[in-house]
Structure formats: structure tokens, C-alpha cells
């Protein structure tokens, strides 16, 4: 059976690529600190020595649209082209191409359906920055096959937070039951408090630093019950109008497990939003 080599949860900041590659007067003052934190975070994945990456993210109205909107979708294809014109335009992201791990995708779909998740699938999925940002930060050589799992954190009605946690627990079980002698890192990205297109956007910090502080504590301690006690679809409007992306962090808490303390925790207080990085090494994961 496969081994879960690492569980990683992260924000996906589309400006990192440009900030980290810019030079001279174009280089923002926070870039060096940001790069140092990312390089330390990247080492946590390198150390896990994965063969395959299962990647949880959310399409930002690129391929998935309101005329046919899945709640949870698994990409099953041999290749995933990546990044879109409007991400190139706004963030300077490069076009990318990643290999797919189709047999793991097939296993997740079959066993996930049998476990009670009516997963949608796509055999031709162009992925976006929710998946490519963590490739850029954690595995810039982009040399490992992936299985993308998309969640709807964007277009109401959405599944409730508890459903994201349940899917995380199930994904962990599905990877562990994959009959392959492979090491799989499960990586998911979301947001802490975030406002997009509203009056609180692009402030000096994230729109709700108090929410961010609590969120980091919940995640770092694997405090799923504490998080679920406070976070609802309705409550997530208060910290910022794009904060439903936090539910992907809750999914990753489900992957990591109840009470699982993260082995690596780091944050960076940027304008607009707080960055947060977490890595767990499951018991028995080390070589």
C-alpha cells in the first residue's frame, strides 16, 4: 500500500512567483524574507521524498463555470496543462505542464464514490494557480505526477465546513489504501481571511488578523473540533468575502487527523493577506 509521506497545507499567493523572481527596483522589500520562508517550507516536502502529489485546490472560474458546477472534482488525465491567460496577465505566472497519476486518480474516484462522496471527474483539466502556486513554492522543478482535487469554495451553494473535513479524512484513507508502493504527499491550499473585490481588500494586513491568529492555532494543533465549533458557511463572511477558501485548510486538517500537531508551522504577515505554511509527517512516514 502507498505511504502518506507528508501532509502539507498552505496559502496560495499568486504574487509569490513575481515577487521571488523580480530584481532591482522591482523587487518588493518583503521578497527576501518571503523566499527564505518558502525555501524552509520547500525543504519539508523535499525531506519527505515523495513520488506522487495529491493536490487539493479550487478552480477560480477558469474551467469550472456556473452552468455546470461540481462541488468536488478529481482530475484524471495523463497530463495537466496549467495556468491561464488572466493569471499570466495579472500575476505573471508561467504556463506549466504537469504529469498526471491516473491510476491514483482512478482509485480515488472509485473508492471515493463507494465511501459516500459523489465525486465529479475531468479527463481534460487545465489547472490554475491554486495548484500551480504550491508547485512553484514546494516543487519548482515540477517533476512529480499529480492528482488534482478541486473543491468549490467559490460559488454558493457550497458544501459545509464539516463536509470538507470529512473529505479530507476520506482522502487520507483513500491514499493509504492505494495498492502501490509509492510515497504520496497530500498538499492542499486555501486562504486565511481574505477580501477580494470588496471594501476591505488590499489592506496593510489580512482583513481579519484575529481570525488569522485563531485559524493558525486551530491548524497547527489539529483542533478540528474547536475550528468546527466556530466556523460555518455564514460565519466565514465576517473575516472577508473570500474567506470560504479557509475550508480547504479545514479539509487538510481532516487529512492530517484530529489532534495532529503540525511539525512545521510558519506565517508571514503580508499586505492583503497572511501567508501560512504547515507540514505534518504522519507516523511511519520517514524512510
Amino acid at each position, binding site marked *: 500500500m502507498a505511504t502518506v509521506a507528508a501532509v502539507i497545507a498552505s496559502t496560495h499567493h499568486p504574487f509569490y512567483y513575481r515577487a521571488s523572481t523580480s530584481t532591482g527596483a522591482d523587487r518588493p522589500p518583503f521578497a527576501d524574507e518571503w523566499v527564505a520562508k518558502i525555501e524552509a517550507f520547500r525543504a519539508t516536502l523535499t525531506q519527505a521524498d515523495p513520488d506522487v502529489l495529491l493536490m487539493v485546490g479550487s478552480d477560480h472560474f477558469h474551467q469550472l463555470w456556473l*452552468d455546470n458546477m461540481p462541488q468536488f472534482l478529481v482530475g484524471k488525465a495523463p497530463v495537466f496543462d496549467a495556468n491561464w491567460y*488572466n493569471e499570466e496577465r*495579472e500575476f505573471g505566472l508561467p504556463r506549466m505542464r504537469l504529469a498526471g497519476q491516473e491510476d491514483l486518480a482512478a482509485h480515488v474516484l472509485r473508492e471515493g464514490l463507494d465511501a459516500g462522496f459523489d465525486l465529479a471527474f475531468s479527463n481534460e483539466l487545465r489547472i490554475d494557480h491554486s495548484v500551480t502556486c504550491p508547485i512553484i513554492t514546494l516543487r519548482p522543478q515540477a517533476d512529480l505526477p499529480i492528482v488534482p482535487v478541486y473543491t468549490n469554495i467559490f*460559488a*454558493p451553494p457550497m458544501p459545509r465546513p464539516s463536509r470538507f473535513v470529512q473529505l479530507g479524512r476520506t482522502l487520507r484513507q483513500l491514499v493509504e489504501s492505494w495498492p502501490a508502493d509509492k510515497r504520496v504527499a497530500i498538499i492542499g491550499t486555501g486562504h486565511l481571511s481574505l477580501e477580494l473585490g470588496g471594501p476591505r481588500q488590499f489592506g496593510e494586513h489580512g482583513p481579519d488578523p484575529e481570525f488569522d491568529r485563531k485559524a493558525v492555532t486551530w491548524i497547527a494543533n489539529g483542533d478540528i473540533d474547536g475550528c468546527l465549533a466556530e466556523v460555518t458557511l455564514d460565519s466565514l463572511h465576517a473575516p472577508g468575502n473570500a474567506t470560504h477558501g479557509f475550508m480547504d485548510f479545514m479539509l487538510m486538517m481532516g487529512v492530517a487527523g484530529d489532534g495532529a500537531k503540525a511539525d512545521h508551522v510558519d506565517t508571514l504577515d503580508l499586505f492583503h493577506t497572511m501567508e501560512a505554511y504547515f507540514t505534518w509527517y504522519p507516523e511511519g512516514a520517514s524512510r
Partner: protein
Amino acid sequence: MSKYLLDKFLYTVDRDPQLVERYRDDPAGTLDWWEQEMANAVLNCHPAERSTWLRFTDEERRAIREHDHVGLFQLGAHPFLTLTLFIAMFERDHGPLEYQLAYARAMAHIQLPYPDIAT
């Protein structure tokens, strides 16, 4: 209210470099063309398979025609779609982050709860 159609307008324009420029330069003409030709196109289907029922309200047309991002927000358009498209059209006329901050200031009077974006 046709929030879905507002979102469809923003979505189809934002993903097409030529339409982004056309909407920036000629919002009224782009709106007229789009409502006539695109509003009832079923995306991802053969062009002959059109819908028959999608149209804007007068207030929605006004907000699109006037590049009124605050009005679009108050009409329940998806804020991510509006922001992304408007940055594409107008960030170029401003210094770093100036446009994004002015965009937020223009909405400073809006309180929670924000308009419902469910379609």
C-alpha cells in the same frame, strides 16, 4: 435580477484578451453586442444550441455600460470576477496598487452583510 448573466458577462469578457480591450474602450457597444450575441450562448455547446431567456435588467445594463464596479457589487455580481476584469482594464493607468486601493475606497460605505452572490 440576473446575477448569473452578470457573472457570465464578466467571465466571458475576462478570459478573452480582445474582449477585455473592447470592453475597456467601448463599454456600451460591447454590452449591446454581447447581450445580442453572447448572452444566450450555451458555453461549451454548439453555437446553434442557444438559450432563449437570458437578458439584463436596465440597472444591470447601466452598471456594465458605466464600468460601475460598485454597482456591480451591489447587484450581486461575483466580486472576484469583477475585480479581476477591472484590474485588467484599469490597473495599467495607475501606479502600483493605486487602482486596487481606489477600488476599495469607492466601496468604503458598504457594510456587512454584503449582497448575496448566490446564483
